[in-house]
């Protein structure tokens, strides 16, 4: 499935979301395999956690407002810890 060759498409967005959640919201790296499935519960849960933490509307989806916040410059220290 050529998602990796789809810069700017849904695939690369989800890659970005996943990497962000791994870095800052303690999403385990081995859940990467699961993200390819739409509406993956773990990812949606983590997105919700991030949205709650950042004070965003909690949708569980990487909506435009959420993505905009995720692209803002920030501190590299994770927001939540294991």
């Amino acid at each position: 499935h050529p998602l990796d060759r789809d810069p700017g498409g849904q695939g690369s967005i989800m890659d970005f979301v996943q990497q962000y959640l791994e870095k800052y919201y303690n999403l385990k790296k081995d859940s990467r395999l699961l993200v390819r499935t739409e509406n993956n519960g773990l990812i949606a849960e983590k997105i919700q956690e991030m949205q709650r933490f950042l004070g965003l509307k909690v949708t569980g989806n990487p909506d435009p407002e959420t993505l905009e916040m995720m692209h803002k410059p920030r501190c590299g220290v994770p927001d939540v810890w294991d």
Partner: protein
Amino acid sequence: FSTFPGSPKWKKHHLTYRIVNYTPDLPEDAVDAAIERALKVWEEVTPLTFSRMHEGEADIMITFAVGEHGDFFPFDGPGEILAHAFAPGPGISGDAHFDDDEKWTKDTSGTNLFLVATHELGHSLGLRHSDNPEALMYPLYNTLTDPNRFRLSQDDVAGIQSLYGPPTVSTDAPAVSTKPVPTRPGPPDMCDPALSFDAVSTLRGETLFFKGRYFWRKYLRASKPELYPISSFWPSIPSGIDAAYEVKSKDTVFIFKGQQFWAVRGNEVQAGYPRSIQTLGFPPTIRKIDAAFSDNDRKKTYFFLEDKYWRFDEKRQTMEPGFPKKIAEDFPGVHPRVDAVFEAFGFFYFFRGSSQLEFDPNAKKVTHILKSNNWLDC
């Protein structure tokens, strides 16, 4: 706010820091100044003090680096990650790293080093990210924050004080410092029965009670007054002020110390200040005033000095003729010397030491004698 798992914190109150290298974006003295100011922000609200080392291992090692820089948390080029820091502890713990692929600036044209450093040093002292968007410890860089008017949020203060407590007189002299640890009085106790105030003023519906380096903000509807360092709102205003009053029609509070006064609107100190009190019409022999308030209905400002008072006409912007007059003549029952005064609900409240007099200007008499701190719910 939150702290790291296990709430790691420094076991000592005097910490050392070292600026290991510099960014080419800024002159070295600008980096030094940004780091010093950032440390001062935390010093103001804790018992912590800091001294600089120029070589060897300091508690907090400050480094500019790009990409992979030896800690397994590589930087990512321009944008996104600006910096990171480690929770208190030995070795790399407590250290702060800044991504030198950012454009570090003194102002907000790039990434302001002071703001980021203050955040990172919060981590170095034990604070984790806050989910309060008003807090310095919120993880995202706020491009709208003005570094010149920066102040910690109550969330940040509560967070750091949960680890170290409020500022106290420090006794643990540093082993490596070349200068003595400064001793600073801690924040005043608002329910101290002997509490007196330097000045009291209204500000946009709140009442501010000044004492030393601090002031309490009292909202009429809020259950608890909030204590802040004066410098966290107005960095250029000195501590231990003499008097303050609000002219509501100008949305301005005037703050006095010695022969100078400042004008502030909200948390902005107005340009062109400080000015000499002589510009208000005081003779050069007057070295300071004790207290002041503005009667916003009658557009008159009263200045109290020892046993006399002066009246300033806010419409004409001149001191009224026939003054000074004796306080006792026009405010019978009021002490000849006043620490602070403000107007509320049509009454004038005069403070002297731990006492407060409620004066009814229509009846021209003192109607209640109260403790100075009764406004602080004590």
